[in-house]
Every structure is written in structure tokens, then in C-alpha cells.
């Protein structure tokens, strides 16, 4: 029996969908069978980040309305044999076309066939959020180091206390700009974790390559050398129960050769 994890944040634009795609991919790379469920009805984009947007035949609303079987709607990511699947969101529907009981039933149907079911929650705390947490056993709260994102994360943790899941929520701090955090321009990891008073699951550094690769439909986690990819891979290992130390925040000092090269590049 698999575990259903909702990826949520409250605030939009903090990287829920990117996190879902990358954690799902990282878990698949570790040999786990994963199903990603896009619950952002009307504004689907998990499929785009995974490069599966041209392969969608049916969506989650088709399944709930009995227009298609669950198996017909699941899109297989061919890069990972039989390990990574996506249940896409509907575009020509809205959040009210799903209710929490339907999502719960759907997730229960998926859990026996997968190790992990990752639920990509829409922004906000209304119907879409309630749908997303209904079927979940655990929650990952994604926040960036910005006050507005942290404030919304706090609100979401409060709501999760009201509707408790089997496991306590854990925090992912996403899009960390190392230099700004080192210079004290944003709250640091300890401050954010202490403020929210929930366990830290991992940190992910901000990196241009995240946007570049997602534009190509390739999750960044496929590039093992990228720092953001390492962050996601570490989180996936911690979800699996491994103990992995946090990545070092300090930016690497440029070596002698790159400094010399920098002199020649100056205008």
C-alpha cells in the first residue's frame, strides 16, 4: 500500500508543481513506483513540466464523471519504464467539478498500485485545497524564504492542524538564493523552520536551470550535478527514510583560473 503526499503552500508561485514533478521523478529514479496527480483543475501545468502535455487523452474529471477508466487517464512517462505516471488535471472544468470524497476515493484506488501518490495542490485554501488534502496521508509544505510565502505557509499549517493527516506536515524551503540568505537579506533556514515550528524536510537552491529544463519538459532532477537537483534528490531520500545532511549554504569561492578569466571578461 502506497503513501499519498500532498504538496501544498497556500501562496502561488513558490514551486509546488516544480517540486511535485521533481520529487516524483527523483523517487522514480530510486526505483519507486510513483503517480503524480495534478489537482490544479483549469490551470494544469504539471504535464508541461514533465513534457507529457501532448500525450493526454483523458483527465481526472473524466475519471470522476465516469467518462473514462482510471487506467485510461493515467499517462505513463516512458523515460522511467513502468515507474512514473501522471493523472492530469482537466482544463475545461473548474475546482467545483471535484469534491473531497471523490478525490479521496480516487487516491485510495491508486495507492495499492503505487509506492507514492503525489498530489499537486492548487494555490489558495478553498475548494481545491480541501480536495487535495482529503486523500493525503502526509503533507509537504513548500515555501520560499519570502515573508509572504512563509505567512501563507503558516496559515496552511494551521488548516492542517484543523484537518489533521496521519503524519505531521514537513517543510521544503524552495528557491533559496544563497547570497541573499548569507547576507541576511532573507530569513535564514533556522529562522524559517523555528518560526513555522514544523520539521524541515529539505532545502532547494534557486537555479536558472530549473526554469530552463522545465521549459523543455525535463525535470531538473535528471541532471545529477545541478545543486537544485541535488536538493530534490536529498528530499526524495529523506521521504524514503534515509538520513541525509542538509546541503551547505555557502557559495563556493571562485578558483584562481575563473578569477583570471573574470578579469578578461570585464568590460
Amino acid at each position, binding site marked *: 500500500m502506497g503513501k499519498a503526499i500532498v504538496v501544498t503552500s497556500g501562496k502561488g508561485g513558490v514551486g509546488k508543481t516544480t517540486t511535485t514533478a521533481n520529487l516524483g521523478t527523483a523517487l522514480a529514479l530510486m526505483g519507486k513506483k510513483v503517480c503524480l496527480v495534478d489537482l490544479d483543475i483549469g490551470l494544469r501545468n504539471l504535464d508541461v513540466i514533465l513534457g507529457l502535455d501532448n500525450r493526454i487523452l483523458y483527465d481526472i474529471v473524466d475519471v470522476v464523471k465516469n467518462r473514462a477508466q482510471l487506467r485510461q487517464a493515467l499517462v505513463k512517462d516512458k523515460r522511467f519504464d513502468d515507474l512514473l505516471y501522471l493523472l492530469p488535471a482537466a482544463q475545461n472544468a473548474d475546482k467545483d467539478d471535484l469534491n473531497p470524497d471523490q478525490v479521496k476515493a480516487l487516491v485510495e484506488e491508486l495507492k495499492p498500485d503505487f509506492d507514492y501518490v503525489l498530489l499537486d495542490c492548487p494555490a489558495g485554501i478553498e475548494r481545491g485545497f480541501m480536495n487535495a488534502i482529503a486523500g493525503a496521508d502526509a503533507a509537504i509544505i513548500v515555501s520560499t524564504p519570502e515573508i509572504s510565502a512563509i505567512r501563507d505557509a503558516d496559515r496552511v499549517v*494551521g488548516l492542517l492542524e484543523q484537518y489533521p493527516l496521519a503524519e505531521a506536515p514537513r517543510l521544503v524551503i524552495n528557491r533559496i538564493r544563497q547570497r541573499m540568505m548569507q547576507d541576511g537579506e532573507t530569513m535564514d533556514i533556522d529562522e524559517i523552520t523555528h518560526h513555522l515550528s514544523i520539521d524541515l524536510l529539505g532545502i532547494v537552491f534557486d537555479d536558472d536551470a530549473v526554469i530552463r529544463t522545465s521549459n523543455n519538459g525535463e525535470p531538473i532532477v535528471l541532471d545529477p550535478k545541478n545543486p537544485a537537483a541535488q536538493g530534490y534528490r536529498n528530499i526524495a531520500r529523506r521521504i524514503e527514510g534515509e538520513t541525509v545532511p542538509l546541503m551547505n549554504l555557502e557559495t563556493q569561492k571562485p578558483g584562481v583560473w575563473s578569477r583570471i578569466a573574470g578579469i578578461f571578461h570585464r568590460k
Partner: protein
Amino acid sequence: MQQSVVLKASNDGYELIFRQAAGFDEIMVDLKTLLDRLQVDNTTDKQISFDMSTEGRLLTADQTQAVTKLINRYPSFSIHKLTSDVVLTSDALAMIDRETVHLVNQIIRNGQVVTITGDVLFFGKIHEGGVLQASGNIFVMGEVAGALEAGYPDHNEAVIVSPLATVPKVRVGELLELVDPAKIVDDTNVVYINDIQTLDYQPLNQLKRVRPKLFIQNGGHI
């Protein structure tokens, strides 16, 4: 046989006692007989106001109404007060709630409103956007970055005792305001409604002067 209703006279006036062992119907019959007799004996026009005690019995609303209706039939009689030696368990529990200082140690997060009946000694954390509401006083030993509302909704005698440097909003009874840093007088402030009905801040050592009733003890001393 013992009467089910006993009339007692004292310096304060007349007292009617409904015997606990008697049935209510019996009481109503005896009460009528007694009042009839009393009306005949009462030769003056003087109004008589009764203190009524039901001993270890609680009258239902209907029963109270029946007693009131009977008394009102006699123009020279009225009810001063109707008392009982017992209260409902639910009323007793509510009373305990109101009178207790509740120890609260939790995180109140953005958007959460925690409402408590009675006084609160708060050890937890209130995050930005969280609200702690108490029907009584609030005493803070934890960290507060949200709103404190004492005497909610309309108990204007309540106080907030708290550091205010990080508190954005306070409310006591019906008055609320954004905390003005210029008004903060001490590390720990007493926020209360003063004689001219505005929110005022005093240093902690003025608490006893501002609200002496807080320190009137009904028990607990050895």
C-alpha cells in the same frame, strides 16, 4: 403533617420556603392556601415582597412561571427573589470555566482564532495574523506577534498583561486599537479601559492599582 410551604418572617421581610421533600403540586396547593390566609390577615395596604427559597430543588421554567402567576393574582404580594441551594452541572462547569485561569501552551497560526472562556495565562506563540480571544483577562509569558483580545466581547473590566513590542493589535472589551509604540510604558504593560473609556497602558507595577479586584482572594491561603 409538615407543611410543604413554610412562611418565615424576619427583619428583612418575609421568606417562603418550599420544602425539598414535598411534590411541586402539593406545594402549589399549600402555597395558595397560605397566601389566601395571609391576604385575609393582611389588613393594611402594605405591599409584601417575598424572598423564596426552593432549597435543594431547581424549578423548571414552567414551574417558575406557575409560581409567579399565582403570586401575581394577589395585588399586595410580589416576588423579591427566587433562590435555590443548587445549580445545574452545566452552569457549575461554565462558572468554573469563567473563574479559572486557563494555562494555554499552543501555537496560534496565521488566520487562527483561539477563543477561551475565562482568564488565560499564555505560554505559547501567536504568529502574525493569529488571534487569542478570552472572555476574561490575558496574561502573556510567551511570544506574541498576533492580536490579543481580552474581555471578549464586552467585558470592559478585563486587562491584558503582556510585553507589547511585537504585538500589532489589542482589544479590551469593546475597544480595540493598533498598538502605538509611543504608548508603550514598560517591558510588560497592563492594557485596560480607563475612567474616560479609552484604552490605556500602564507599567506592570500599576496592575494592583488599576484592577484591585484581581487580587481579592476567595480562598487558596493556608
